[in-house]
């Protein structure tokens, strides 16, 4: 990010938006420096360990905090703790004195009865008809029976699961479910759903859930959590949520480690009812993995044999299996650039099979060839011939991007300069040329702009007596040029 100062200024100011920058950068920077300096200078005066002051260990855990203590007690140094710990007691006990209103409430006792609303029906009635009880307006629940229940809540899970068995008729079960949903407590809803799932026929359960969306979502979530894939797919199919079925099935491939099996599985996914757009992606996913398996087998063999210079010089860092498409293309441009379109591993074959856009292709190929410092290939990438045999340079991504990528791969100035020259926008060209010290391009651009002042100014940037220096001199001495200043 070593953008030249002048450029930077210009960049900030030319933007139509408020730059997120300090109003006056220099000032700001010096402010930070200043406070830093002040802080440093104070160190001589107060030269004691302030970690101690804050009672914070280096890692920042306050001494006595829970996560700190886990480390401490687990390592068995309990005794060393006592001293430090007692000093903290004061801090915590000072909050024992509390506003009175707070202490008169025990939160747990207040809210332990949350399931009462439908359980009260269970205990109130002798076990005959529960459903009508449930429909009773909530206000009618007797406080006393609620309190009684609160005491029983501790045994709730078993109580609940057993008691549910007493809901026999479909109607009762549905009322139970609706009550649970109305309570919004997923815990209870799920418990009821497990019960219904066990005691109702699938078709009936599915049919009833279809009109109970919230409960339905809970069941889907539950099935996903517990991995009951088959039941889940049946449910989704029943609901005609075919796209979800497809995605849910496709998700399974992530659990398959073996590539061959994964490939087979993906193949079986192609026919699933995805949206049109997704179908093509899934198809591509399968084709890509199929391709990668072939390339991998071939290249591993090549690498092991040690015959290929390329593989010897640049050993592969990882297998290409399960890599994204663009990574695969990069790999192919790196190791298999010159192969004919007929082979599976050739870049042009990948480009054609996956309909990779020109832009994407050029970017990737450029990065791969630049990494290998194959400047000839880079050149060829942008050279087009017209029918008369004239060559022309063209880049679908804009030459400024080309320059950036080359620069990132530390291309020499001679190579860089060639592409800087091709940047169409004069301003950009100048800034890139200045940034990457492509003197010739800068000089020529100023000459073409007939900007004598800038050219003279640039003299200070080049070495005295160098070829560039002389070039500037000869241009300045050229009487033919009509300078604009």
């Amino acid at each position, binding site marked *: 990010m070593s953008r030249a100062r002048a450029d930077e200024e210009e960049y900030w100011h030319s933007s139509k938006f408020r730059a997120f920058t300090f109003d006056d950068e220099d000032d700001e920077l010096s402010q930070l420096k200043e406070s*830093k300096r002040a802080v440093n200078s104070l160190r001589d005066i107060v030269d*004691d360990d302030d970690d101690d002051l804050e009672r914070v260990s280096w890692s920042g855990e306050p001494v006595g905090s829970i996560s700190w203590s886990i480390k401490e007690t687990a390592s068995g140094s309990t005794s060393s703790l006592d001293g430090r710990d007692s000093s903290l007691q004061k801090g915590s006990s000072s909050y024992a004195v509390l506003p009175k209103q707070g202490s008169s409430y025990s939160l747990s006792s207040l809210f332990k009865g949350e399931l009462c609303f439908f359980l009260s029906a269970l205990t109130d009635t002798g076990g005959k008809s529960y459903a009508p009880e449930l429909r009773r307006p909530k*206000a009618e629940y007797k406080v006393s029976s609620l309190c009684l229940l609160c005491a029983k809540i501790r045994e709730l899970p078993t109580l609940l699961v057993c008691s549910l068995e007493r809901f026999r008729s479909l109607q009762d079960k549905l009322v139970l479910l609706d009550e649970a949903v109305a*309570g919004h407590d997923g815990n209870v809803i799920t418990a009821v759903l497990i019960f219904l799932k066990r005691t109702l026929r699938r078709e009936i359960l599915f049919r009833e859930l279809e009109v109970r969306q919230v409960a339905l979502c809970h069941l889907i979530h539950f099935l996903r959590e517990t991995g009951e894939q088959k039941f889940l797919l049946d449910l989704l199919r029943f609901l005609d949520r075919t796209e979800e079925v497809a995605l849910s099935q496709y998700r399974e491939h992530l659990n398959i480690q073996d590539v061959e099996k994964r490939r087979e599985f993906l193949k079986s996914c192609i026919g699933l009812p995805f949206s049109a757009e997704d179908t093509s992606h899934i198809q591509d996913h399968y084709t890509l993995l199929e391709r990668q398996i072939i390339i991998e087998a071939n290249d591993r063999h090549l690498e092991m044999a040690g015959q290929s210079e390329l593989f010897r010089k640049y050993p592969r860092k990882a297998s290409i299996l399960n890599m994204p498409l663009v990574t695969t293309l990069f790999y192919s441009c790196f190791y298999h650039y010159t192969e004919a379109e007929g082979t599976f591993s050739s870049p042009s074959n990948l480009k054609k099979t996956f309909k990779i856009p020109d832009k994407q292709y050029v970017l990737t190929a450029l990065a791969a060839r630049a990494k290998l410092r194959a400047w000839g290939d880079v050149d060829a990438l942008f050279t087009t011939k017209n029918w008369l045999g004239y060559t022309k340079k063209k880049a679908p991504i804009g030459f400024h991007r080309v320059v950036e990528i080359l620069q990132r791969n530390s291309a020499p100035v001679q190579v860089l300069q060639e592409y800087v020259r091709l940047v169409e926008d004069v301003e950009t060209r100048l800034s890139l040329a200045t940034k990457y010290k492509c003197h010739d391009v800068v000089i020529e651009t100023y000459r073409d702009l007939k900007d004598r002042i800038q050219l003279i100014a640039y003299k200070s940037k080049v070495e005295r007596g160098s070829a560039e220096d002389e070039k500037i001199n000869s241009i300045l001495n050229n009487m033919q040029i009509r300078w604009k200043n």
Partner: protein
Amino acid sequence: MAAHLSSGRVNLTALREAGRRELREFLDKCAGSKAIVWDEYLTGPFGLIAQYSLLKEHEVEKMFTLKPGRLPPADVKNIIFFVRPKLELMDIITDNVLREDRGRSPQRDFHILFVPRRSLLCEQWLKEQGVLGSFIHREQYSLDLIPFDGDLLSMESESAFKECYLESDQTSLYHAAKGLMTLQALYGTIPQIFGKGDCARHVANMMIRMKREFPGSQNSIFPVFDTLLLLDRNVDLLTPLATQLTYEGLIDEIYGIQNTYVKLPPEKFAPKKQGEGGKDLPTEPKKLQLNSAEELYAEIRDKNFNAVGSVLSKKAKIISAAFEERHHAKTVGEIKQFVSQLPHMQAARSSLANHTSIAELIKDITTSEDFFDNLTVEQEFMSGIDTDKVNNYIEDCIAQKHPLIKILRLVCLQSVCNSGLKQKVLDHYKREILQTYGYEHILTLNNLEKAGLLKPQTGGRNNYPTIRKTLRLWMDDVNEQNPNDISYVYSGYAPLSVRLAQLLARPGWRSIEEVLKMLPGPHFEERQQLPTGLQKKRQHGENRVTLVFFLGGVTYAEIAALRFLSQMEDGGTEYVIATTKLINGTTWIKSLMEKLEPAPF
């Protein structure tokens, strides 16, 4: 340790104390010496309630992290598992219990404390594994709302948004309602409830229902809160996607704040003693607690980052001057006075040193070219420019394989600012993302679509410009140093959620009915009757207190904006903030992403 909780308008120490009491009660139930086995996720939130000293007073001698295998040997009578009700954790517990040596004497008793709730599903699971009978006490600890600061409460429920909007599982809303009932038990019934969104409606319904069903919760406490505002996160999907530009917001964006702690690269915090400097640089990250107990942090946390430098430099001058005083101290009395101030001065100095270092770290990033480019695009989208076509910068980022979450944040932001993308644009982005990052991300894209973050435009109508103009979401003349509007927190964009809160206080939502209808979900008002005698007679000039509850998460920048409104001289309202989770765009998107198996090598 908790002084910062009582600094605000509402004393949240009472809530913390209630939590501590409940914890003590449970510990005392398991008589004798104990070891706690922690679900690691819980240690952070618990740390905000209790220190180790409290546990120790109640005979907790050892603490371990929950992991599969045999439990470490510890000569204690009780082993207590502190866990969230998650099936995968039940499997680990099962493993622990089954491997326990039955022959050891004395035998150790097992207990489970579920946080925040017992789960039938989990107990069923333990039963199926045949270990449920091994546990003597199975209890729950309702850690619903945890006090984070004097004006901030969080449930720290990571998956709340995903559960509510992707899975239609409203359990977290149930917990939110319960948390609110707890608050009302401690701080009085909140007379007025406003809300916007489906989840808000559910929570309000549950509260009303719970109140009816538990008349015992009717209390005689003078109400501290005047108003409760419930807001669905999906009413404002835009705000978390944008990069926060307040000091605290940026710390969270860059380093991630967890349970008020941040871990920072250690280089800038090298040991300070001269002479030994450079010898052994620490390699462990530096961990700092960030809350309003630290005077300096309280002052700068909510400022736009551009205004932080000048405060730090001013502070430096003040502290330097204070230390200079020692030269003027001539008499014994003067020296004594100077010395008595030293501890405070040292604390101030160390605080200043830390924040100067953090500001430097952040500045390195905010001045980078990429940060600037990213921000420019965000601001273009938010101000409504070129939201309907494929964006060059996003394409470039994909080509350079920037982190996927960054791409998703930007694409979602564009989609939200355009009320959905044109089908062609959406397909293009999808294709590029899948080809570059892997086809399996089709699952994540699908989740984002379901959550409404990424979607095709339907009906061909873009409502965002109307919403933006009516609610004045984009302010061209923003003052970062001395802000006069909440838009300073995003250097131009005023968070929609906070604007809704602001307009509710004055002049009221009736003025924006049209826009409210464009946003998803119902808006409503409920009143809870107060017994006579508890109705508030407001002193002239006394501010109202509003509790804003963000269902599905809130960002630090939104909190800053609400604090700014609290502090406005003629504001008339002070805000306390509650949420299901403190989020930023990255953690939020991450929570919606499909968990993919790690690559097989």
